[in-house]
């Protein structure tokens, strides 16, 4: 039985004097099994955080239903809140308490017995490598440490489901790797994790399944491997070509070449362009590609055959334009 069920979730923020109504979520449904790490991947404004807000009771759904362990988060919010924990996008640690105090007080809010909350605070501080910062105020910690303190706080009441909203945004590469290790150890312990991200590598590495979300709807939902396999063609041929414009039409007409994307120009070598060919493997395809470049007066500098990444899937589904 799934631990989290989201059914036909809709959230429309009503119009205000300054802004028109926003349909942030327009009918999202998914279910997460216990022990899974489920990802919501999508551009800014796709509806990821609003979906998370509805699950955590901080946003009231316009319609639809969310249940955690069978408990409706709107009708029985107080019971649902005991089962979930949230690591929000903004660092909202209680700035008036020390790191250890804020764990202990979180335990108090959830009614943990004294011995339990003290020992759990010490264990989590050690696990998150914060023991030597136990007496520090949160605002004196680095971003990565604050993030780990928020995870420690979230785990204090032993939630069934841990929700993380863009957990690695703004972290340096070391802190990000450390957070991934932390999440991997939570997975190993069987904690159900739901996270939003717009980092492909993160989604690919951590999530057992993911939903790609855009404009308030789920575009696709599957394991990362299945999503990549489902990309048309299933393989990518990257070419670095001089005089690419001249050869592109010929390349496009080769059977087995499904789509051509122009990637960025090379900075060092003027005139050199990267073409990304989404191909269906076929006999003699490479030969025909080489011939088309040569006959069209182009010059091939570099070739590589690649498996599609999650980013290719993401861009294929959500488009290339910049979102603010």
């Amino acid at each position, binding site marked *: 039985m799934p631990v989290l069920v989201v059914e036909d979730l809709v959230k429309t923020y009503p119009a205000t004097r300054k802004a028109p109504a926003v349909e942030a979520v327009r009918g999202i449904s998914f279910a997460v099994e216990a022990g899974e790490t489920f990802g919501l991947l999508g551009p800014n404004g796709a509806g990821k955080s609003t979906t998370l807000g509805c699950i*955590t*009771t*901080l946003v009231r759904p316009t319609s639809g239903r969310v249940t955690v362990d069978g408990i409706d988060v709107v009708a029985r919010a107080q019971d649902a809140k005991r089962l979930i924990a949230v690591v929000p996008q*903004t660092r909202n*640690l209680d700035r008036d308490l020390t790191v250890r105090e804020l764990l202990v007080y979180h335990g*108090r*809010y959830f009614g943990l017995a004294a011995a339990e909350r003290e020992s759990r605070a010490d264990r989590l501080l050690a696990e998150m490598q914060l023991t030597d910062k136990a007496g520090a105020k949160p605002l004196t910690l680095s971003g990565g440490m604050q993030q780990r303190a928020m995870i420690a706080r979230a785990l204090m009441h032993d939630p069934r489901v841990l929700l993380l909203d863009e957990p690695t945004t703004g972290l340096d590469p070391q802190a990000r790797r450390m957070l991934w290790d932390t999440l991997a150890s939570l997975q190993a312990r069987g904690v159900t994790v739901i996270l939003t991200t717009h980092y492909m590598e993160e989604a690919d590495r951590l999530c057992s399944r993911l939903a790609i979300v855009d404009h308030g709807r789920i575009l696709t939902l599957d394991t990362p491997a299945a999503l990549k396999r489902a990309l048309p063609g299933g393989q990518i041929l990257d070419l670095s070509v001089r005089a690419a414009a001249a050869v592109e039409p010929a390349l496009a007409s080769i059977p087995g070449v499904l789509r051509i994307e122009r990637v960025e120009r090379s900075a060092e070598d003027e005139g050199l362009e990267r073409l990304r060919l989404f191909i269906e493997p076929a006999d003699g395809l490479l030969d025909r590609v080489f011939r088309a470049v040569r006959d069209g007066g182009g010059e091939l500098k570099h070739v590589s055959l690649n498996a599609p990444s999650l980013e290719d899937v993401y861009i294929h589904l959500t488009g290339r334009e910049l979102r603010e």
Partner: protein
Amino acid sequence: MTAFLALLRRDLLVAARNAPMLLTATLTQPILVVLVFGNILPRLGLVADEFRTVMVPGLMSITMLMAGVQGVLMPLAADLSGTREVDERILAPITIFGVALEKVVAGAIHSALAGLIALPAMMLLIHQVTGVAVRPNMIVLLPLVAACGMVAASFGLTLGTRFEPRFSGLLFAVVLGPLMLFGCAYYPYEALEVLGPVQYVFLLNPLVFMSEAMRLAVTPEVRHMPVPLMLGGLLGFGGLFLYTGARTFARRTIL
């Protein structure tokens, strides 16, 4: 209830750590006013001697109003700021009304303590400089101090959820300042008979009921407002502010 008490405990811990600062903020105003109005002005013959005892309960109610409003307003500003520290409270197993009520109770404790510290300080000072003794009725005083604290803190919740922190300067100048001047702090409500029907306009000011409550408890010998009217005013304003404040709080925290 567990979450409510834990939140209250947290707020009192943080307030206790800031005690020296809060104490200074609480006591400076009433002590200076007592010095000026209780000693300097009567000696210059500019105010009547009776004014010394009339102003003690009034200064106490002003102190409590300021402490109660600030005790809710300041933490609320941090809570509702961009970092949304309030979310941790809302995610605790407690209703949104519970979270709002806890803030008010913490503010009320702050306000009551401020009043109860300011009163003996003023009594001592006034006795030292003028020899006048103030004898409060302790049995009446404590419940009324608690009630006034709740009114002041509920008012703080209403103001704090409606005004952005950047307008707090304006708030003190335009809202709290006039309330204090027209709050029957420096004159008893009953003496306003001389104004005719205008007297009733003062009943729109919650501080009037707080001042009259303190007047009843601290200087029972001075004429004061009828008790049912005073209690009705405290209850009415307290309930109104708590209801509107908690509603706006819910609207601003749950999207």
